[in-house]
C-alpha cells in the first residue's frame, strides 16, 4: 500500500457518460461507501486535485474541456478512466461523434471497467491510483534532486 502522508483530493468530470457512472462516483462519497472518512474530497477546482476521475468517452466538443482540466492540475497527477465508455468507447464506440476512450486525448493511469462501474470498483481504482500517485511523487523528487 501507500505511504503518502496526505489524502488525495479528487476532481470528477463527466465527458459523454450516460450518468450511470457519475452517480456511482457520487455514491462513493455518501454514507454507504463514504470515502470522505479517509479525507478524500471531491473538489470542483482542478488546481486542488490530485486524481482526475473521468467518466464517459471523449467527443469533439469536450476534448478542449478535458485537456484544459488536465493541464490545470498540478503535478504529480493521476487519471482514472471510469466505466467501459471511458476505457474504450463501450456501446457507443460506433457513434459518429465518439472518438473512443479517454486515452486518445490524455494519458490514463488506471482503467475501471464496468457498465456502470460499481462503487466498490471505483474505490479500488482510486486506491490503485494512490499507488501510482506515490510513484510519480518519488520520481518527481528524484528528478528535482538530480537537477
Amino acid at each position: 500500500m501507500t505511504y503518502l502522508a496526505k489524502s488525495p483530493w479528487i476532481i470528477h468530470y463527466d465527458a459523454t457518460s450516460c450518468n450511470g457512472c457519475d452517480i456511482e462516483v457520487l455514491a462513493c462519497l455518501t454514507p454507504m461507501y463514504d470515502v470522505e472518512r479517509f479525507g478524500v474530497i471531491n473538489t470542483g477546482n482542478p488546481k486542488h486535485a490530485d486524481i482526475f476521475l473521468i467518466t464517459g468517452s471523449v467527443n469533439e466538443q469536450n476534448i478542449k474541456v478535458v485537456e484544459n482540466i488536465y493541464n490545470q492540475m498540478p503535478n504529480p497527477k493521476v487519471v482514472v478512466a471510469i466505466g467501459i465508455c471511458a476505457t474504450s468507447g463501450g456501446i457507443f464506440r460506433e457513434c459518429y461523434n465518439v472518438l473512443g476512450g479517454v486515452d486518445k486525448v490524455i494519458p490514463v493511469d488506471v482503467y475501471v471497467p464496468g457498465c456502470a462501474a460499481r462503487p466498490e470498483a471505483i474505490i479500488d481504482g482510486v486506491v490503485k491510483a494512490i499507488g501510482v500517485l506515490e510513484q510519480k511523487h518519488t520520481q518527481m523528487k528524484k528528478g528535482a534532486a538530480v537537477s
Partner: protein
Amino acid sequence: MIEEQKTIEISPSDLVVKVRDMFVEQYRLVQIGATKLPDRIEINYSFDKNYQFINFRLILMDDKVEIPSVSGVYWNALFYENEIHDLFGLNIKGIVLDFKGTFYETKEKFAFASCPPKVEPIVRVKEKGKLNEQ
C-alpha cells in the same frame, strides 16, 4: 393501439399559420423532429392538449427547401430548430435565436443528412433442395 395519434400532412407555406392556430387553442408543443428517408425528408411537429396527440408532417423532396421557423409562435421551438439545422443541414429561416451551426459541434457536420444504403431484405428461396440467397 393504446392511444390515437393523428398525423396531418401540411405544406411549408401554411406551416406557420397552422402552428399559430394550435397556439391559440393552447396546445403544447411536444417536439419537432426530422427523419431522413431515402427519397424524402419528413419533419414532424407534435402537439398535445389533455393527452390528445396531434402531429403535423412536413414532407420535403430535397434538403435545399427553405423552411419557415415557428419559433416566433412557440419560443421553445428554437431549440428543436437549431438541432435540426445542425444535424440534418436543413435550411430554417428566421429562428429567433439562431446558433448558426454551433448548437452541437460534431465531428461530422450534418451527420443525419445522409441515409444508409438501403439493405434489401434477404429472401431465402429453396431451390432444387439447396438454400440460395437472392
